[in-house]
């Protein structure tokens, strides 16, 4: 799929948010992010871990270029072609699964062969269906397929596996590992689930409560995706102790 793109010469993802504030409903400014500095090597998989409501989605929207109203700087890897998986699948309900995937693709790829991608994600039998006819698990798969179909230089995922049952979530995690490994796309993944993050990522970023900043970072030794339950638990305990000391 994206074999032509080598990870070596691509630029890293660099995101610096000095300050990001929202106006609350009564007009008082609320500071959501302060002094956040994030650097992710090209081709690696980073996970942002933090408590619910700490502004993870805000950071992701800034990284996606959807929110430019912040103080700081953003450098995206490669040509900046973005693939994104939102928390909700955000498919167009009036278009079939295949149309949803193809609509996101650039015009030059319009006729591209999706068979392989669709096979990996197990969507083959559902391409002609409308999103309203899909289970949440399948709709999430379609959203992931859409994000990979655009051949992204940069992939963002916002808790894409919440409210799925564990069996489905775990299959989807394996599929995500397979896809990110073969495309070597620089990926930023947001989650509140530490075990999930340890299983998937090369690099972990721990976030504080509001105003959010990074309180700890850690690189994990390869290979990703195949870490056993025991290893995940061990790293998890170690990280919890480390983070607990800093908040």
């Amino acid at each position, binding site marked *: 799929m994206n074999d032509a793109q080598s990870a070596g010469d691509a630029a890293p993802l660099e995101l610096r948010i000095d300050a990001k504030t929202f106006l609350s409903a009564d007009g008082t400014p609320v500071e959501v992010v302060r002094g956040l500095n994030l650097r992710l090597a090209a081709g690696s998989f980073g996970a942002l871990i933090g408590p619910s409501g700490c502004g993870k989605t805000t950071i992701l929207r800034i990284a*996606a270029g959807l929110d430019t109203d912040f103080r700081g700087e953003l450098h995206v890897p490669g040509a900046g072609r973005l693939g994104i998986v*939102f928390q909700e699948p955000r498919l*167009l*309900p*009036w278009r079939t699964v295949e149309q949803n995937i193809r609509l996101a693709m*650039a015009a030059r790829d319009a006729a591209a062969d999706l068979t392989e991608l669709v096979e990996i994600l197990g969507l083959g039998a559902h391409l002609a269906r409308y999103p*309203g*006819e899909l289970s949440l698990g399948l709709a999430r798969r379609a959203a992931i397929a859409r994000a990979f179909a655009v051949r992204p230089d940069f992939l963002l995922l916002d808790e894409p596996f919440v409210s799925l049952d564990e069996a489905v979530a775990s299959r989807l995690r394996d599929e995500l590992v397979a896809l990110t490994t073969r495309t070597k796309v620089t990926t930023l993944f947001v989650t509140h689930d530490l075990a999930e993050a340890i299983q998937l990522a090369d690099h972990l970023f721990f976030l504080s409560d509001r105003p959010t900043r990074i309180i700890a970072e850690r690189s994990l030794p390869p290979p990703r995706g195949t870490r056993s339950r025991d290893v995940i638990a061990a790293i998890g305990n170690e990280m919890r102790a480390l983070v607990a000391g800093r908040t």
Partner: protein
Amino acid sequence: MPRLFSLAALIAAWAIAAALADSRLLPGPLAVGVTILADIRSGELPFQMSCTLARVISSFVIAMALGIAAGYAMGRSRAVDRYADAWLVVLINMPALVTIIFAYIWIGLNETAAILAVAVNKLPNVIVVMREGTRAVDPELDEMATAFKFTWFSRIRHVVIPQLAPYLAASSRSGLSIVWKIVLVVELIGRPNGVGFVLGSAFSLFDMTRILSYAISFIVLMLVIESLLVQPLERRAIRWRRRPA
């Protein structure tokens, strides 16, 4: 089926009332039917109807095009809405007759004035409905389209229009009925042909048979347009909704 029965009951009630009244001010369905057939054969009825229909279509198209553009702009931008809303209120509350008189006086007793007058009467209604529809456009899908760098064209076609479709259908349905009613008034006041003109001259002769025959023919024509054009388009626009099992 129930529709057919209730329609038959209406015609039966009309026939009985006409028989009881036995007056030339309330002709029965049979007399009206005979007049309709005679006027179709002579070519008079098709000619007058096509004049009216042409005006209905042109003013409908103008009102929809302007109304969709203005409504969309007002729904999208708060600033536009704040400035244009006062104009809209004036337009909504302007009596149809006043617009028609203005148009005839300022533009002249011609086709342009007639069509514009009707379009202006219909316009505010389209704007209001389309503004509502635009406000209901899902910001999350919008964001998705931005993130995936949809072109302007495919964003309108695949993201915006499907969401506006129910509002488009609603405003074109109500629009069609408003427009043809006002077209008749415009024709009555200042046109030398069309159904409105015929009704006007029949009124001065108290020719009830003729009035009923033209009114009924036009209602039938509008029903045909509605069921052959508007409803199938509407069904197509909502075909993605899951059908109740």
